[in-house]
């Protein structure tokens, strides 16, 4: 007997019992279920929730692989820097190496495993208690979470945050499709407020830097945002920043790969190009405003805001998590705006507020997740006014016609 019919028999056997949803989830995840609907007309389409989720995960795989190599690369680069050795950079020679990948395996892979393990366990428990099928919502969240945390995040912290994010961020609202906040960002926000020392500073972004504090082998890796916030010069070239050979959260450093993912999402019509584009526009507008303020000498280099205000607006688009947030977080169809006009407003404000928080909060110079969470809350309001505006316009048209 094949695995499929085995699973099917198990499903029949446990039908009606409490554990049924758990078996059904595995069955439908791997295969097309045997049951078919009987009444009425149905639209048959290939892009159900599971396929949608899987496409997003496919778009994230390059970022994950890059993050695994980058974890090792940043580690060895920081050690070299601490020893005073300068090495010539080459992609094949010093980036895609087994040493780098090995660090990715021992550091990044556990984050992925814990994120999926804990998150899906919570989903299974809720499905069994509430007696509904296991929902696929966690598939993407589970992949996003390891990509947006610092590499040295302790695994127990991640588990606590995942439990909190899935229960408070999603299940209390009624599960997949009902949440008002993006669960992955809820998890990130929880980590940030609960354990701020592990989420910021110049130690957490490079593997092993935290353990080496105070020893002779101490290493550090400040993010680019961190350097700018402290009015320091950065040592990375713009191409390094664009391709992502910089310290940062695990999978968000490479703007290039994120844009590839964006192209894939837009091509498959999973991600909204309106939201992605308007987020970048919003960020650019805010960046240009700040650049102008500096150009007019309103803020001089004695101000603590100078470093980030003086950052070129196009550089703002590449550093920090802005691109990752715009492409993979803001476009979440559940928590984002639904109407086309609403999507423009929603995206624009995310970008605009992100850069504003970035500049005015030097203690923690990354505002993207806060901006997206804030706009998640406002998305239904934006949609409401867009719809009402349309209703009013059509009423006016009707009046003009009948009058």
């Amino acid at each position, binding site marked *: 007997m094949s695995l499929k019919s085995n699973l099917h028999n198990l499903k029949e056997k446990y039908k009606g019992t409490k554990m049924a949803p758990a078996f059904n989830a595995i069955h439908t995840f791997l295969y097309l279920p045997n049951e078919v609907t009987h009444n009425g007309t149905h639209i048959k389409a290939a892009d159900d929730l599971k396929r949608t989720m899987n496409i997003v995960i496919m778009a994230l795989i390059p970022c994950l692989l890059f993050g695994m190599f980058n974890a090792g690369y940043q580690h060895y680069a920081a050690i070299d820097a601490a020893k005073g050795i300068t090495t010539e950079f080459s992609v094949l020679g010093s980036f895609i190496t087994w040493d780098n990948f090995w660090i990715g395996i021992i550091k990044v892979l556990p984050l992925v495993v814990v994120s999926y393990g804990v998150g899906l366990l919570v989903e299974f428990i809720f499905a069994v208690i509430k007696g509904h099928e296991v929902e696929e919502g966690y598939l993407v969240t589970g992949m996003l979470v390891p990509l947006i945390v610092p590499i040295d995040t*302790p695994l*127990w*912290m991640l588990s*606590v945050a995942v439990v909190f994010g899935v229960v*408070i961020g999603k299940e*209390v609202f009624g599960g997949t499709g009902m949440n008002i906040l993006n669960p992955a960002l809820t998890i990130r926000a*929880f980590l940030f*407020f*609960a*354990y*701020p*020392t*592990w989420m910021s500073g110049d130690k957490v972004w490079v593997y092993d830097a935290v353990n080496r504090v105070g020893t002779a082998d101490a290493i550090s890796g400040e993010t680019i945002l961190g350097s700018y916030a402290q009015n320091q010069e950065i040592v990375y070239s713009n191409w390094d920043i664009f391709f992502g050979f910089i310290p940062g959260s695990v999978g968000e450093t490479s703007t290039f790969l994120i844009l590839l993912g964006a192209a894939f999402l837009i091509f498959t019509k999973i991600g909204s190009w309106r939201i992605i584009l308007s987020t970048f526009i919003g960020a650019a507008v805010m960046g240009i405003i700040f650049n102008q303020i500096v150009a007019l000498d309103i803020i001089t280099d004695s101000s603590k805001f100078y470093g980030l205000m003086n950052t070129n607006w196009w550089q703002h688009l590449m550093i920090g998590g802005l691109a990752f947030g715009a492409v993979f977080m803001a476009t979440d169809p559940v928590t984002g705006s639904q109407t086309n006009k609403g999507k423009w407003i929603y995206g624009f404000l995310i970008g605009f507020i992100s850069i504003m928080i970035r500049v005015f909060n030097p203690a923690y110079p990354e505002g993207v997740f806060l901006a997206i969470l804030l706009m998640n809350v406002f998305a239904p309001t934006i949609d409401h006014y867009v719809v009402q505006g349309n209703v009013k316009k059509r009423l006016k048209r009707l009046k003009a016609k009948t009058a």
Partner: protein
Amino acid sequence: MGLLSKKDAKLITDPLTDNNPITIQVLGICSALAITAELKASIVMSVSVLFVLGLGNVVISLMRNIIPSKIRIIVQLIVVATLVIIVDLVLKAFAYELSKTLSVFVGLIITNCIIMGRFEAFALGNGPWKSFLDGVGNSLGYAVILIIVGFFRELLGSGTLLGIQVLGDPIEKTGLYAFGYENNGFMLLSPMALIVVGLIIWVQRSRNQALIEEN
């Protein structure tokens, strides 16, 4: 129940569970969010409210037939204000540090909706003994929630209980901290108090389905 009749006993036990002022009536939330970061503050706040509500209910109940109904709110306010000032001065005299932690919130007991709510809903229509029991019951119901929230927030947020380090020393890295455990700073922020209260409400309503409101 030798001391209390069944009906009287219900006045005390009801607010503890099925008619809890915080989780069911959702009153007195502000103070529950503001001062529960430490267990000690929660206990002192609970005792203060117990004193004000227990005594205030008796006073209002005794005066209930002579208060003109047009100015009853003002009279009630004067009674609460008097009692709160007594509490405030006692705290300042005997527990100065604590009164600083509680700061404005002792004074704000005046505006705690539970107190005015009980005056209006109960003390104005019942005798002093019953009103006393009702006041004690409601403030105990308030206290239970405050202490639960304070317990979890202080334990998880600071790793202490009543100021004693129960999980080990975070700086010396003893106890749980030796294994890499860290205090959850989110617990010390007010939003987490709201979430903890929410979780209590969730647990309570899933255990007793009758409490779930129709909508």
